[in-house]
């Protein structure tokens, strides 16, 4: 089979495996199958990523030529996103085995089956070239995500999941409305076909409305301010492994789809010309950066702190888009990857501490730095990446973002990026200070609580993640190269 023929298996492997995993007994077998499936997806998507050239890979399901049938159409942009998503899933699983034993002692087969469905859904959204197919796979990933968030033992997870469900469904319905308008005006659902047929009807209210509804619907999924309200609690009260996974993937995929619609379906000229989208996105992005960072600075629950930081990071991602340039888009794509790396590492570190202390409150971190030095050092190093210190992956992202801003002649934006970086310094610092400079917690009797260092099964994946943050801060040819290709693929649109 050729590369193009293997390509859909990036989605099919986790999807099919999910059924098998649901039937597997015990705890280790489901994990193993899940991990293998994620690894297979990662391997395949890496293969696709390297094997792709100017022409997109196409796969027509049922051998029906599009637009009659549904096709997967993969260029450098979706290959890159698929690699990020599956890679993060793999990393999260590698770290999560032990953590899941603790958080979800029972029914792990259901948990892992849902995990795989969430993964398959996200990958399906990423690879497909059909607008309605996006909706279907979006719902697979969303429904499984709602359940996964509610899996934790904290009752607030239920509430967070429900609120996410309402918001997410509204978002999906908006997308559906948008697709409906596009269908009514063009008679097709295939993205490439839409791209061909939209210009003829571009100047109509219906197409504009379709565009707006899709963007708003995706904005909800993307947690773009002011549609971010579901995110902090959903991240904060989900099981840790899910937080690691979601933080690196869910919003990323939504952003990718948004870009696909902006650039491929509608075309950059239309998207940024017909409506002041760039300005709007920039305002929202900046608002997200500032508000997210600001709230994170004073948030006592560290998982929520990092979640708000994610709101801010979504701001960075969208900022790159709003600059409407190759370099800005490259910044977005490289940050897509780098942010996944750093947030995964941070949430892993947090989860590793929680494995011992059982709480995400900042008070629970008092003195932990001395008791769990390896874990907290990893946290600190990953924090450097989040701040954007040179030699870390985060620096590369910020650098490109700043270059894009300079290129656009927006020096004040550079200042703003630096200010929000400072805010990141502050909120990461709070954690460091709590861990190393506060006296350790005491129990009711006044005796110091002693937490042992986490087991190696958690530490090793965590440190691998931290090491990757530094590796991709020093050796950037893969990440930057892929990001640039992805940006070019989008700007060149489907050929």
């Amino acid at each position: 089979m050729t590369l193009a023929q293997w390509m859909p298996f990036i989605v099919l492997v986790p999807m099919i495996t999910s059924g098998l995993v649901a039937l597997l007994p015990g705890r280790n077998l489901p994990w193993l199958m899940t991990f293998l499936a994620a690894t297979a997806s990662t391997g395949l998507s890496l293969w696709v990523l390297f094997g792709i050239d100017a022409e997109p890979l196409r796969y027509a399901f049922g051998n029906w030529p599009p637009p009659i049938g549904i096709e997967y159409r993969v260029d450098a942009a979706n290959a890159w996103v698929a690699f990020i998503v599956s890679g993060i899933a793999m990393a999260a699983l590698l770290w999560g085995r032990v953590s899941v034993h603790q958080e979800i002692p029972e029914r792990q087969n259901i948990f892992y089956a849902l995990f795989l469905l969430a993964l398959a859904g996200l990958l399906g959204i990423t690879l497909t070239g059909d607008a309605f197919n996006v909706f279907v796979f979006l719902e697979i990933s969303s429904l499984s995500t709602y359940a996964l968030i509610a899996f934790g033992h904290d009752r607030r997870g239920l509430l967070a999941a429900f609120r996410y469900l309402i918001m997410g469904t509204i978002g999906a319905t908006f997308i559906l409305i948008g697709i409906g308008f596009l269908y009514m005006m063009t008679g097709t659902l295939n993205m490439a076909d839409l791209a061909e047929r939209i210009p003829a009807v571009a100047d109509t209210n219906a197409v504009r409305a379709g565009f707006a509804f899709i963007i708003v619907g995706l904005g909800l999924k993307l947690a773009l301010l002011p549609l971010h309200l579901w995110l902090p609690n959903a991240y904060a009260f989900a099981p840790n492994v899910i937080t690691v996974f979601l933080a690196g993937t869910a919003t990323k995929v939504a952003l990718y789809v948004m870009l696909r619609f902006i650039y491929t379906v509608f075309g950059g000229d239309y998207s940024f010309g017909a409506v002041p989208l760039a300005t709007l996105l920039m305002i929202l992005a900046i608002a997200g950066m500032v508000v997210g960072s600001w709230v994170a600075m004073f948030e006592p629950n560290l998982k929520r702190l990092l979640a708000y930081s994610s709101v801010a990071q979504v701001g960075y991602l969208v900022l790159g888009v709003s600059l409407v340039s190759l370099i800005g888009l490259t910044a977005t794509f490289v940050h897509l990857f780098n942010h996944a790396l750093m947030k995964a590492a941070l949430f892993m570190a947090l989860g590793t501490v929680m494995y011992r202390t059982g709480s995400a409150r900042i008070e629970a971190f008092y003195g932990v730095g001395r008791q769990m030095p390896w874990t907290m050092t990893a946290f600190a190093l990953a924090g450097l990446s989040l701040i954007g210190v040179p030699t870390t992956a985060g620096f590369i992202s910020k650098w490109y973002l700043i270059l894009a801003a300079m290129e656009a002649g927006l020096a004040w934006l550079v200042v703003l990026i630096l200010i929000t970086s400072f805010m990141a310094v502050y909120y990461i610092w709070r954690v460091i200070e709590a861990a190393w400079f506060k006296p350790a917690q005491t129990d009711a009797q006044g005796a110091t609580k002693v937490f042992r260092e986490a087991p190696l099964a958690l530490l090793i994946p965590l440190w691998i993640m931290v090491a990757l943050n530094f590796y991709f801060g020093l050796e950037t040819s893969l990440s930057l190269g892929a990001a640039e290709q992805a940006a070019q693929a989008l700007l060149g649109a489907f050929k």
Partner: protein
Amino acid sequence: MSDNKILRIVARFLIPLIMLFALYIQFHGEYSPGGGFQAGVVFAAAWILFVLIFGLDLGLEVIPERAMFVLMVFGVMLYCAVGLANVLMGGMFLDFSVLLESPQAAQQAGIITVELGIGITVATVVMLIFTMFARRKREQDALEDEA
């Protein structure tokens, strides 16, 4: 509700009829409106009717929870299996035309099989969900009684 004799007798007639109707829309879906989804739902409705009249325990004896769970997986796996078979026979995923000599017949065979898969999954998922809700009530009541 299950004390009502007339209801029981009517149900005895009605339930097989509904199931038959379900099978009809399952396998006649290519000729008239209907197909796996509708059939699955209708089939599940028949079972739910059974449960409402004869009780959950009896209903679970007819179709155990575990069976629902396994069949739920089986349904989607059947669908996937057809797709994978197409790939193994040299076609694209879900390209039914490679299944048999005649592409038309192959398409029909493929459609029937995947519709069956969908029907099974839909029916069992609906039953499973209903079981979950119905049993929840009993468990909650048991808890209240304890207290």
